[in-house]
């Protein structure tokens, strides 16, 4: 009797298992069915302009999964007369998802292109798979796009054609951050030249500043970042530029050369090698990600000097702990930043490209010109003054309160009237930024915002190849990066000698580096003669 019941239960379980599989499989067919009918109804709606346009967008996010009740999202949909669905993808997997989408042809209506110079996008763009956007920049029906900076638009073009809406970013970003309370204790002022930086690293590295009785403080903490197939030291360019060098690519005798063949590159790497030998640089920096620098090194008081593009914010764990203990009152008591100057005392910083990725519209998903125009109207709204403030800062009264015409005060997430998770993640959809509010709060962040926007054009060294493409870079760029990055790391760690490093540079040149430089030179001269 017992065995019969057991057999019956087991057979029911087996059948249930198999049937549930069928049921789930069948239900998906209906899902794809509704997707097909959705696009059909949208083309009908194109004639009735009152209906909100519907589209699907894939956005990457960091932090917690954004909830669907974000007030920012609701207001954006209302103000731009649209009803879009956001498919959130964790930032760590966005590269994989992007590759799969591009290669399988299953593209959403709108997607973010991380690297507009990579092969994947270039091939698709040249094959006319994306809508061309130049005409919308000068069209009076889309006034929002006039807020774009010329440089950002210029830098993201492919062969002179605009296929993406660039997501504008600040140009002057790479700087040096340090613990200002430690510097005061040691009697040092801001490390704004390479020599002062070296001195501060020596002082911090040879002292005991975290008060644990051991001289284990790291003089200068470095982090790495993925760069086109290889891992490079983040913000290395600011050191090279401060030494008088160029920013990735520059002009020399009328020709475009890569920074790798310049003497300033070699001297900067040699300086790092010397510092590493003197035990001033974090021992395992090749495997430290730059995003971990603050949480793993700075917050644990292991270091007081690091290269970064931002300062720790008011939510920084160490700052909160010290504030609670009454040791500091504001962020600027602990942290400070400085931009580097060259040997003669003139500020000299590398310029970013002016944008980080772009928003593209695949023709395979948005087939209809009318529908595309409607979607462009949505992004036009995002680029207007109100739209910029909405997407970048949030909704007034819920996420911030206004201080004056250009400044706002942020409301902490736990005190907001409408509880939603990570509502600021929607800023991945932003385009221009010239009207975005500045957040008031800590004097440190306000000083940083001011410093970022104050500069003379002569102080910024731009990468002149940003508007151009090179076949060699697209095809072999990853391999070349890996080659030189491995050699750089080994040289800094002291594992290979001077002559080996020179040989590696030579190998980089012969296996494609020189070819890349020649191609860029041709493209540059062609653009000059136009």
């Amino acid at each position, binding site marked *: 009797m017992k065995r019969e019941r057991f057999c019956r239960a087991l057979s029911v379980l087996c059948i249930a298992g198999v049937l549930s*599989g069928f049921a789930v499989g069948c239900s*998906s067919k209906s899902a*794809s069915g509704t997707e097909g009918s959705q696009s059909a109804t949208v083309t009908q709606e194109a004639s009735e302009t009152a209906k909100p346009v519907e589209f699907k967008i894939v956005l990457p996010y960091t932090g*917690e999964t954004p909830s669907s009740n974000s007030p920012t999202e609701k207001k954006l949909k209302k103000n731009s007369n649209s009803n879009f669905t956001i498919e959130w993808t964790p930032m760590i997997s966005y590269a994989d998802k992007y590759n799969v989408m591009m290669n399988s042809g*299953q593209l959403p209506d709108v997607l973010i292109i991380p690297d507009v110079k990579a092969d994947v996008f270039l091939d698709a763009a040249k094959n006319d798979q994306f809508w061309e956007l130049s005409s919308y920049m000068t069209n009076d029906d889309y006034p929002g796009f006039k807020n774009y900076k010329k440089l950002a638009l210029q830098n993201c073009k492919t062969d002179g054609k605009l296929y993406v809406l660039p*997501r504008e970013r600040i140009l002057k970003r790479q700087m040096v951050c340090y613990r200002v309370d430690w510097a005061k204790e040691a009697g040092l002022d801001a490390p704004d030249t390479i020599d002062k930086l070296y001195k501060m690293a020596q002082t911090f590295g040879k002292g005991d500043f975290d008060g644990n009785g051991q001289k284990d403080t790291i003089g200068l903490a470095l982090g790495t970042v993925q760069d086109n197939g290889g891992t490079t030291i983040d913000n290395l360019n600011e050191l090279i530029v401060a030494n008088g060098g160029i920013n990735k690519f520059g002009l020399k005798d009328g020709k475009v050369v890569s920074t790798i063949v310049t003497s300033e590159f070699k001297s900067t790497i040699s300086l790092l090698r010397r510092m590493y030998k003197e035990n001033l640089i974090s021992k395992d920096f090749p495997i430290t990600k730059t995003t971990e620098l603050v949480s793993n090194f700075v917050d644990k008081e292991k270091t007081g000097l690091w290269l970064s593009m931002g300062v720790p914010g008011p*939510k920084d764990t160490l700052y909160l702990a010290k504030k609670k203990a009454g040791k500091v009152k504001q962020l600027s008591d602990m942290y400070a930043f400085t931009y580097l100057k060259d040997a003669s005392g003139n500020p000299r910083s590398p310029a970013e490209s002016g944008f980080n990725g772009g928003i593209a519209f695949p023709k395979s998903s948005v087939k209809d010109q009318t529908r595309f125009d409607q979607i462009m109207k949505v992004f036009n709204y995002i680029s207007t003054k109100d739209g910029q403030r909405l997407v970048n*800062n949030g909704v007034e009264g819920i996420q911030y309160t206004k201080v004056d015409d250009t400044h706002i005060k942020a409301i902490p997430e736990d005190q907001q009237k409408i509880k939603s998770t990570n509502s600021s993640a929607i800023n991945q959809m932003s385009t221009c*930024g010239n009207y975005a509010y500045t957040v008031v709060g800590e004097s440190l962040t306000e000083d940083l915002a001011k410093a970022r926007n104050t500069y003379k054009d002569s102080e910024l060294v731009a990468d002149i190849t940003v508007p151009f493409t090179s076949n060699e870079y697209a095809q072999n760029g990853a391999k070349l990066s890996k080659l030189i990055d491995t050699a750089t790391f080994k040289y800094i760690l002291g594992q290979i000698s001077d002559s080996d490093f020179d040989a590696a540079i030579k190998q980089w040149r012969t296996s494609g580096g020189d070819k890349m430089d020649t191609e860029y030179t041709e493209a540059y001269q062609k653009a000059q003669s136009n």
Partner: protein
Amino acid sequence: MTSKKTKYRGENIAMQKRHWKYWKYSVGSVTFDVINILLLLAFGLVCLLPFLFVIAASFSNPTELLKYKFFLWPKGFTLDSYKYVLFTTDSVGRSLLVSVIMTILGTAISMAVTSMMAYPLAHSNVFGFKPIMKMVTITLVFGGGMIPTYLTIGAYGMLDSYASILLPGAVSASSLIVFISFFRSLPKELEEAAKIDGCNDFGIFIKIVLPTSTALLATFTLLFAVGNWNAWFNYILYINDSTKWPVQVILRTMLSTSNSAIGDSLMMGEDYVPPQDVVRYCTIVIATAPILVVYPFLQKYFTKGIMIGSVKG
């Protein structure tokens, strides 16, 4: 050793137990045992201690955490972090539910399909045996890669639904081969006896083969359960709605800081701050606890399945 006339077989052994002269073990074997035990103990501790630290840290006060590098007992015991993770961020609670349901469904489907496919293949004279075995062996060696698999699943219309997680991965060729070899090892006499009594093939499968294979079934249930519980990448790839993701995706995004710069935003005033260590530790404990709890209950089935006295004579 003196040979003494003994009354019963065990008396010699009983004597050995009493008298030191009959000590069974040599110095060499004792040293070997001691070193063995010490090494395994050390290895076990190396695996266990970090996990104990994570559990202790998850119950601790965040500011206390900064002071100490390693500890085994919570410092400043507090349940606040768990409250925060489970209730204020609504994603963890819901994703736990998704994880549990998908694990149960996935394991049930995998067990059902794999065992039903393995039993016929255990008989080499079954119709279509050679071609099917060839196909199974090919999948053992070759795989399509991420993009062709994505295209195939898309062609079946399974994208953006749980079918893309449950169905393609239901049978793994290596597990199937273990099932087949186990079913082959069962004595043929069992089946013949059942056939004589008038049982058909499916009846033999349900009434005789499965009950005697509980050791195999228990092992693979655990294996499939752990595999399904840990899956995260396929969800990100195939399912677009973030509310349908399991807790492992949440854990992964919380624990790994992205290496690329695309995550930055114009509003650098509030830079993305990775969640405090305590929140990460809490999520780790929440994500691993269910499997740890289930494991002891399945252990007893590993030993119960041994066939005792099923074939007489």
